[in-house]
């Protein structure tokens, strides 16, 4: 009778149409799951970036800023009076003026 019961309950088809029907109805859910899996991957990447790269990025920016600031500080005379600088500017200006004058006169 077990066989009879099995025969009574077994579907008449091979199940392909049933499987196709289920897959058709599940298309939306499967698509959402694929999208969610993609979001999760992106989320994980961002979390990883936040956890590891972000502090290092800040540290790198600070170090770079210091590295750029230090040569300027070394190159500039720390105790030089303001006058020579002004004088140099004036000289530069006058040299420029002389050059312009020479060019004008020359022409």
């Amino acid at each position, binding site marked *: *009778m*077990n066989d*009879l*019961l*099995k025969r*009574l*309950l*077994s*579907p*008449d088809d091979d*199940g*392909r149409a*049933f*499987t196709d*029907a*289920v*897959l058709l*109805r*599940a*298309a939306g*859910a*499967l*698509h*959402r*799951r*694929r*999208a*969610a*899996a993609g979001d999760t991957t992106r989320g994980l990447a961002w979390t990883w970036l936040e956890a590891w790269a972000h502090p290092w990025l800040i540290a790198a920016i600070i170090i770079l800023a210091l590295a750029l600031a230090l040569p300027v500080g070394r190159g500039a005379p720390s105790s030089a009076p303001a006058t020579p600088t002004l004088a140099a500017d004036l000289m530069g200006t006058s040299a420029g003026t002389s050059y312009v004058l020479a060019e004008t006169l020359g022409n």
Partner: protein
Amino acid sequence: MEPDAALAVRAAAGDREAFGALVERHQAAVRRLTRAVTGDAHDADDAAQDAFLSALDRIDTYDASRPFGPWLMRIAANASIDLVRRRAVRRADALDERAPSRGRSPASDAEAAEIRAKLNAALAQLPERQRVAVTLFDVEGYSHAEIAAVLAVPEGTVRSDVFHARRTLRVALEAFGPGKQMEER
């Protein structure tokens, strides 16, 4: 053949092929169970489809260290019982007649049809839980413990359900002689 657990993991990530393989692999057993509960081929397929979709919805809750079949059967049993309760009016003689087998005499076809009708009517008399229990036990070969897990009832309850269901079915088929008696397990 890829294990169910691996397919379930892929299906959880939205892999259509993996989910399709799971459906193809388990559709026959699920449809037999839903047919036993609903007593109607079309309702059974509706319930079976609902069961697979419900399984996909909650596939994240599936414990891959455990067998997939009983987990799915629990969902299928609930889906078919829900459908039966939603559609309160049932037909006692719902099963459609199969195409007559080739090489059989009309008399034996008629007897087979009568047996099926009796068996179907007897199944319809059973409470839903007994239908699930006897189908899983006698058709799908589940143990009492596995059925208890599927139905979330004590194992003793399952033994009792199977016993009473088989007795009802046996009585229904007594008219067809000792050769049709249910095999003991």
